[in-house]
C-alpha cells in the first residue's frame, strides 16, 4: 500500500492525481481488506457527518461521479438528456462493478435527482445498504433537531448491523476530534492558496482536497500536514492575474481541464465551493462531551454554510458570497454551475443581483463533468480578466 508521506510537493500532486483518477477505488479496497469489521460507505455530495462512519470502523468515500474519465455507456439509458451528468457516471460505476466492494451508499437530501438516484440504487444495488439522508430544513433544536437526531440514530443502527460495531461516545468524540483537525488542515491549505495562489494552483488544491474524500482521516491529516510543510518552501513568482471566487459547483464537479482553463485565462481561483462538504463547519466542534451526537446535530442546525441545499429566505447566500469576495480580496465572481442543476441555477439570479448591488463583477457559464471543449470558457474568462484589469 502506498505511503502518503510524499518527498516533494510535486509527488504530493502526483499521488493525489492518481487517487483522483483511480475509478477502481484501490485505496478503499486495500483499506477494507486490513480488518474483518471494516466497511466502505460511499456518499454523494454535498455533506454527510463522516464522523459517525469513521467511528463505526468504516471508510466514508465520496462519490463525485467520474468526470471525463469514464465513457458513459449504460448510464445514459437511466437518465434523460435534460438531467445532469453526475448520476450517469455514478450509475455507470455501479453497473460496471467499480463499487462492488462498497457496503453501503448514503444520498444526502440536496436535490430531486440525487433523491431519485437513491431509489435507483435501491432497485439495482438492493443487496447493499442504501440510505437517503433527509436533513432537516427546520432549524429549531426542538423540532428539526429532534428529527435530525432520530435520523442519525436510525443511520447508526443500520450501519452497525453491517459490521456489528457498536458506536460509543468515546469513538465518536475521537472521530470529531480527527475531523476537527482535518478541517483545520484544509483551512490552512486554503490559506496558502488564498495568500499565494501562484504557489498552490487551483488545480493542485482541487486534487489535494479531493484526496480528503477518499483517504482515511488520520492518513489524510498526515498527508495534508506534509503538503503544507512542502508548500511552505516553494518559491514561485506571482503572475498578473485577477482573483476570483467560483460559485455553483458543489455537486457535479467541473473537469480538471476547466479549472485549469480558468487559471490559464488569467484568473486565480481564491475561493470555490467545489467540495463544500469537506469544510462544512468552519469552526472546531466540541470533542469531549457526553453527547457527541448532539454536537453533530447542533453543528448542522447552527453552523451549516449558506449552501444552496439549506433553506433560507434571509438573503444569506448573497451575504455569504459577498463576504467571501471581501475576505479573499477577490476581484470578481464566476458563476460556474453544472447544466440542469436546480439548486445552483435557481440560486444564481439572486446571487447575481446581490453582486450587482455591491458592484462586484461577475459572469456565468454552465458545464457538465465530462466537458471536453474549453475554448469558449477560456475566451469568456480571459475577457473577464482583461475587463477587470482594465477598469479596476
Amino acid at each position, binding site marked *: 500500500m502506498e505511503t502518503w508521506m510524499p518527498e516533494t510537493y510535486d509527488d504530493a500532486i502526483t499521488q493525489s492525481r492518481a487517487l483522483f483518477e483511480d475509478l477502481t477505488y484501490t485505496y478503499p479496497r486495500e483499506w477494507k481488506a486490513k480488518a474483518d469489521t471494516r466497511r466502505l460507505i460511499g456518499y454523494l455530495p454535498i455533506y454527510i457527518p463522516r464522523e459517525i462512519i469513521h467511528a463505526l470502523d468504516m471508510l466514508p468515500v465520496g462519490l463525485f461521479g467520474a468526470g471525463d474519465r469514464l465513457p458513459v455507456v449504460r448510464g445514459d*439509458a*437511466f*437518465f*434523460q438528456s*435534460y*438531467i445532469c451528468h453526475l*448520476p450517469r457516471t455514478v450509475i455507470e460505476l455501479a453497473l460496471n462493478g467499480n463499487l462492488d466492494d462498497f457496503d453501503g451508499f448514503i444520498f444526502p*437530501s*440536496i*436535490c*430531486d*435527482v440525487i*433523491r*431519485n*438516484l*437513491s*431509489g*435507483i440504487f*435501491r*432497485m*439495482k444495488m438492493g443487496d447493499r445498504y442504501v*440510505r*437517503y439522508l*433527509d436533513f*432537516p*430544513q*427546520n432549524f*429549531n433544536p*426542538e*423540532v*428539526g433537531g*429532534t*428529527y435530525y437526531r*432520530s*435520523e442519525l440514530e*436510525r443511520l447508526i443502527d443500520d450501519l452497525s448491523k453491517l459490521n456489528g460495531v457498536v458506536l460509543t461516545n468515546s469513538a465518536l468524540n475521537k472521530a470529531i476530534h480527527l475531523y476537527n483537525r482535518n478541517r483545520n488542515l484544509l483551512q490552512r491549505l486554503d490559506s496558502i492558496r488564498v495568500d499565494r495562489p501562484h504557489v498552490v494552483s487551483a488545480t493542485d488544491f482541487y486534487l489535494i482536497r479531493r484526496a480528503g474524500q477518499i483517504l482515511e482521516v488520520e492518513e489524510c491529516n498526515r498527508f495534508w500536514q506534509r503538503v503544507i510543510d512542502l508548500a511552505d518552501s516553494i518559491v514561485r513568482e506571482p503572475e498578473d492575474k485577477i482573483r476570483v471566487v467560483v460559485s455553483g459547483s458543489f455537486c457535479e464537479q467541473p473537469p480538471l481541464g476547466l479549472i485549469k482553463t480558468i487559471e490559464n485565462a488569467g484568473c486565480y481561483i481564491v475561493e470555490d465551493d467545489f467540495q463544500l462538504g469537506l469544510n462544512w463547519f468552519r469552526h472546531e466542534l466540541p470533542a469531549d462531551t457526553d453527547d457527541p451526537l448532539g454536537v453533530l446535530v447542533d453543528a448542522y442546525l447552527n453552523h451549516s454554510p449558506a449552501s*444552496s441545499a439549506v*433553506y*433560507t*429566505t434571509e*438573503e444569506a447566500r448573497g451575504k455569504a458570497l459577498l463576504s467571501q469576495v471581501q475576505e479573499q480580496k477577490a476581484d470578481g465572481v464566476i458563476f460556474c*454551475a453544472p*447544466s*440542469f*442543476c*436546480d*439548486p445552483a*441555477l*435557481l*440560486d*444564481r*439570479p*439572486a446571487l*447575481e*443581483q446581490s453582486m450587482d448591488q455591491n458592484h462586484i463583477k461577475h459572469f456565468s457559464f*454552465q458545464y457538465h463533468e465530462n466537458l471536453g471543449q474549453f475554448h469558449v470558457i477560456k475566451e469568456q474568462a480571459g475577457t473577464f480578466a482583461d475587463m477587470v484589469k482594465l477598469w479596476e
Partner: protein
Amino acid sequence: MNQQKQAGTIKIQKENSMLKQKQMLAEHFMALSQVRETGKKVVYTFVPGNLTELIYTFDMLPVYPEINALQSGMRKKSHDYIREAEDLGYSEDVCSYVKCDIGMMLQGNIGPTGQKLPDPDILLLSYTGCFVFMKWFENLKQLYPNAEIAMLHIPYQEAGRIEPDAVNYIKKQLLSEVIPVFEKVSGTSFEEKVLAKKMDLSAQAEDLLIEVFDSAQQKPSPIDAYFGGVYYIGPIFTAFRGSESCVDYYRELVKDVDYRIQNKLGPLTPDGYLEQEQYRLVVEGPPNWTHFRNFWKIFYDQGAVFVGSSYTRVGGVYDDGFRHSPDDPLRSLAEYCLGCYTNRNLPQRIDLLERFIRRYHADGFLVNSIKSCNSFSAGQLVMMRDLEERLQIPVGFIETDLVDPRYYSYSNIKNRLDSFFQMLDQRHTVRVTDDWLSDDVLA
C-alpha cells in the same frame, strides 16, 4: 343531464360537474379579487402537501402558483412569462413553472380570469416531494418581501414507509411554525374542532374521487384518468378540499360518470364522447399544458383512453385507503403530506403504477417525461423498464414540458406514439389468439 351547444360544427358538451367546477372557480377568483374589500388574507402554497383545510380554518384564501402557471400555459401566456424570467437570469435548464410564475408576477400577476391576483400575506412553503419548491419560495420571498413565510418540511419516504419520527416532526412544525404564522396573520386562534369538521368533508370527497377513479375498471372506461383526470382532481387538489361545495362537486361527478356507464359511453373529450375505446393506458408524469388539447387529441383520435395516471395522485394518494381524518387532524395532515405521490420512493411509485395497470386492465404503459420536472422524471426510464419486465406490457416514452412551449414537438411525439400504438395493435392481435396476459396480471 348534459347540456350541449353548437360552436361551428363541433359539439361542445358540458356535464353538470364541469359547470359546477367552473362556478366554484369563478367564485374563488372573485373572492381573491375582493380581498381588499373583505380583508381576507391570502396564502400562496403548493398542490402536493397542501394544507387547504388548515388555511380555511383561519378563513384565509389559498393561491397555487403551480395552477397559475399551468393555466398560463393553457392560455398561451407562458412563453412570454418564461422569457421574462430568463431575461432576469433564470437558466433555460430550470423548472418552467418557476419561471412562468415569476414572469407572470413581473408582468402584473394577472390571473386566469383577467383580474390581478392579490399579493400573498403568507408564503406557505410545503416542501413535499419536490426540492424545487424550496428554491421557488426562496425566490418568491425576494419578490414579496412583506409576506410572512411558513416553512413545512416534509421528509421523503426514503424507505418506502411513513416513519413515526417524520409524522412527529411534521406535527411539531405545524404547531410551532405554521399555525402561529396563520394565527398572527389572520388574527384568528386555531380551533382543532373547526379543522376536524373540514377533514371530515375532505374524506367524503376523497371517497367519491376514488369511486370515479375506480370506474375505469369498466369497459369501455367512462373516464379518462389523465386528460379528463386533471379536471376531476381540480377541486380536491386545489382550493376546495374540506368544503361542502367540494363534496357536492364530486357527487355531481359521480352522477355524470354513472350516466356514462349506464349508456356505455366513453369519457368526454373536447370533440364529444370517445366512441370506440381502442387502447387502455396507464401514464406516468404530468401532462403538457401549452398544447393540452392538441396533445389529448393525438390519443383520443386513436381511441386511446387513460385508465390510470400518476399525475392525478400528485396532490394526494387515496388509492391505498388513506383519508383525511377528523381524529387527530394534525397527524392526519402529516400523513397526507407524506403520502403524496412524488414523496414516495421509486419502488413505491412502481408498485402503485403496477396496481393501476392491473386494476384497470391496461394494455400499455406510457411515460410522458417532463423536461422541467426532475422530481417526476429522474428515474422514469428505470421505472418503465421495471414495469415492462414485471408485467410483459408494451411501454412507450415521450418527452414534453409543463409550460415551456419550446419543448413541445408535435411530430416527434406523434411519431413515437404511432410506433407505440402499432406495438399495442400487435399485442392486441396476440391477445386474441394467445391470451398473452395471464390471469394473475389481469386480476
